[in-house]
């Protein structure tokens, strides 16, 4: 049973550049959420996708955008990178309908460094 997979695991960008992070949810899951975890802090909610639409959004600027594909995989795009965007980006998935325990399943994250 494949868990949540994310790519790339590490990447380095410079200020002003754009980045795309990718996520494949756990098998059978249809909802994907993205979180930003700055060093030494807890994860902060960015947004959630279900049925290829953004359903909820946290307090993040429009530079952060996403997409969900028909196979439920998802991308996180960040434009005009700032130094403060350096963080671990976590993808999490769940099954919205059916037996629902509230639990999110997380990937290992993509570590973004902005220089």
């Amino acid at each position, binding site marked *: 049973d494949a868990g949540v997979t994310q790519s790339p695991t590490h990447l380095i960008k410079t200020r002003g550049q754009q980045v795309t992070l990718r996520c494949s949810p756990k098998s059978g899951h249809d909802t994907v*959420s993205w*979180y930003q975890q700055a060093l*030494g*802090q*807890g*994860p*902060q*909610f960015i947004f*959630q996708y279900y049925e290829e639409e953004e*359903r*909820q959004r*946290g307090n993040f600027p429009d530079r952060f955008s996403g997409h969900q594909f028909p196979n439920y995989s998802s991308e996180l795009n960040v434009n005009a990178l700032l130094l403060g965007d350096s963080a*671990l980006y*976590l993808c*999490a998935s769940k099954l919205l309908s059916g037996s629902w*325990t*509230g*639990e*999110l*399943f*997380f*990937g*290992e*994250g993509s*570590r973004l460094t902005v220089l």
Partner: protein
Amino acid sequence: AQTVTQSQPEMSVQEAETVTLSCTYDTSESDYYLFWYKQPPSRQMILVIRQEAYKQQNATENRFSVNFQKAAKSFSLKISDSQLGDAAMYFCAYRSAFWGDMRFGAGTRLTVKP
């Protein structure tokens, strides 16, 4: 807005001893879930234990148990017979019963001494 507070940035425990990690939360909702996640250096968040707010009985998973005090909005994690592999960051998290996103505390770094 719901907030989660972990007041212990770091905790230390001797191997085989018991340790309790604290968590408080703020919400006006009556139906929600609470979680403890473990994040080892490998970075992947791993679910340790889950509590449904409508259940009065405290959840237990092997060596891990919680003390859920709904009126006090408190949700502590007790780790019994601590093992070296328990060393990690522990995050307390809250989510609404349905659509809500998951809100995390700032985390507690647990060190296990041999």
